[in-house]
């Protein structure tokens, strides 16, 4: 799979879909292999963007995220294209 915007491979690096609700992370890069990856970029998941994971749907998927001042729901299948590092939440999740 073609990987763009590659940055360092920290040990705390993981997928957006793996971040627990209530915690925060920072986008490292996006896997641009297919339509979903490109769409993540269009939606503003760009390196350096802070993302909060707000909640999961009752059945476990999709999840609600907050970034750049707006919120949206993504399925696990799409959000795993976003590579992130975990960040300590500075403020209680909004």
């Amino acid at each position: 799979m073609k990987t763009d915007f590659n940055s360092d491979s920290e040990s705390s690096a993981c997928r957006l879909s793996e971040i627990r609700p209530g915690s925060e992370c920072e986008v490292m890069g996006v896997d641009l292999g297919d339509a979903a990856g490109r769409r993540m970029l269009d939606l503003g998941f760009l390196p350096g963007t802070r993302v909060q994971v707000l909640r999961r749907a009752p059945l476990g998927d999709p999840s609600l995220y907050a970034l750049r001042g707006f919120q949206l729901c993504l399925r696990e299948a799409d959000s795993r294209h976003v590579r992130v590092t975990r960040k300590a939440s500075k403020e209680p999740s909004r």
Partner: protein
Amino acid sequence: MSESDFQTQRTAPLRLALIGSPNSGKTTVFNALTGLRARVGNYPGVTVERREGTLRLKSRTAKIIDLPGTYSLDPVSPDEAVVGQVLAGEIPDTPAPEAIVIVADACSLERSMLLVGQILNLGLPTCLVVTMIDELRARKGQLDLERLSAALGIPVTGVIGHRGIGLAALREQLASPETWSSPPVMPPTDQIERAAWADSILQHVVEKRPGTHTVTDWVDRIVLHPVWGVALFGFVMVTFFQLIFSWATPAMDLIDLGVSAASDLSRTLLPAGFLADFVADGLIAGVGSVVIFLPQIVLLFSLLYLLEDVGYMARAAFVVDRAMARVGLEGRAFVALLSSYACAVPGIMATRTVPSPRDRLVTILVAPLMTCSARLPVYTLLVAAFVPARDVFGPIGLQGLVMLALYLVAPLSATAVAAVLRKTVLQGEPMPFVLELPSYRIPGLRLWLSQIWGSAFAFLKRAGTIILLTSMLLWVLLTFPQTTPPSGLSPDEAASYALEHSAAGQAGKAIEPLIAPLGFDWKIGVGLLASLAAREVIVATLAQIYSASDPDASLRTAIRADIRPETGKPLFDPPTVAALLTFFVFALLCTSTLATMARETNSWRWPAFAFGYLLVLAWVAAWGVRQIFIALD
């Protein structure tokens, strides 16, 4: 009128394109600008709806094209590529726009800026409309639109679309794209640099980011709760379904009464004969078969738009998406399928909430499998006549169990068919699923009423005419050629004789070899042909064939007594009854549904496909069930 005014009047209308991401309020702005006079069609080759409206401005008229909602000009599917093709003038009969109007939601402006950057690079005169200014204020956000305009170098107008605020200024603006300022420097084309460009502009413009909507935050704790959220979802859907079913029934009964009163009246007013028959049974019954759908359509869309405008529909999709994803559909398709349990016509119309054209098409194609209320009279007749009324488990009777099974087969077969369609006819990389949860709001009454009226009007105009014509055509086929029945027949027997010798009767005999493997004879064949008008019509048609004076008790007795001449055994033996029930589970015997499908997909290709695949499925399933029953006998 001055000379120059006269010239602008004569020039061709200004061509504008409206572009924005889904949920940006683009459609609200489009409707507010053009009224409900949009011309709807299809882009060639894809199932994307093409909406164009006429906008009367002070000095000139403009044609405004409402492009499908998009997050980016880089398409991820052929459906999305349409936006770029329209802007480049690559679509036949759709000349490239002279100016672009971008619509962005004030609360998610940061995301829309990436799209704004892409569009500015096209170099066309562009202006930006920022919607939902009221919600931004409610969420304590602050945005300096003048500075935004200065930073982008293009005109920016703030509007509150659903209240019509700011639209006068926007109209003024749209009249003269020649005077719009253009950006002094083009935004960068690289995605990362574009994001930096957007951030630097937003830093000067966003005085305060919108906070969370307090009420929304509070309500969502319950609405999206793992337990309460699911319970509420179930409650809302059951109520929704119940209301469509039970509230529509009195109105539909009233329409039925009105139609038969009107047809009786026409018989008393007109001299007996062909004209009276045509007016009473063809024309008035045909109009009735259109109007009968209105209670369900109006009720469904009242509830649907109410839930949508309040903000619940997106939450419902969020809650149910996982379950729908299993069969290759998405959360927003759920309501359409549920509505199809009442009637596929409003159900198919409700698929408009599904943004991906391919998902929407799959939903439309499986909607007719849901057990609509028109199947109920058919099931009731056959079950009451042929399924023994004995108890199986305590008070639970066999008849009830058979009815339950018939209702349960529907969602099972629909999910199976959806999965198959996804892998065959409508295959392709699944579209990324993006859903936004709008803040809860008190819906505007005017917008709500105009949405309901829009749906009802669209049905009457596009589907209604086709339904009226086909039901009149079926009446002609069931009536002509007229033959003189032999003397000495009772009126019921004469009616039966006339039907047997009509074009439809002959057609029933002609298709007999095709349906004989299912155990059906020509009489059932005529019933099936007549049921194309509406499934329940088979009951009345069988009543006419069997010279039964009422379609209830005496029809039941008559079909029980019918003997197959070749074997001397009952025509309706258990294998045949099971096959007929199965046939009705699958077959798309409903021209209203076909007409609605044609209207919603803007082509006859998909209704033809749906009719064909469901007919094959119905035949094969009915044959299989019959074989099983014969083997068990």
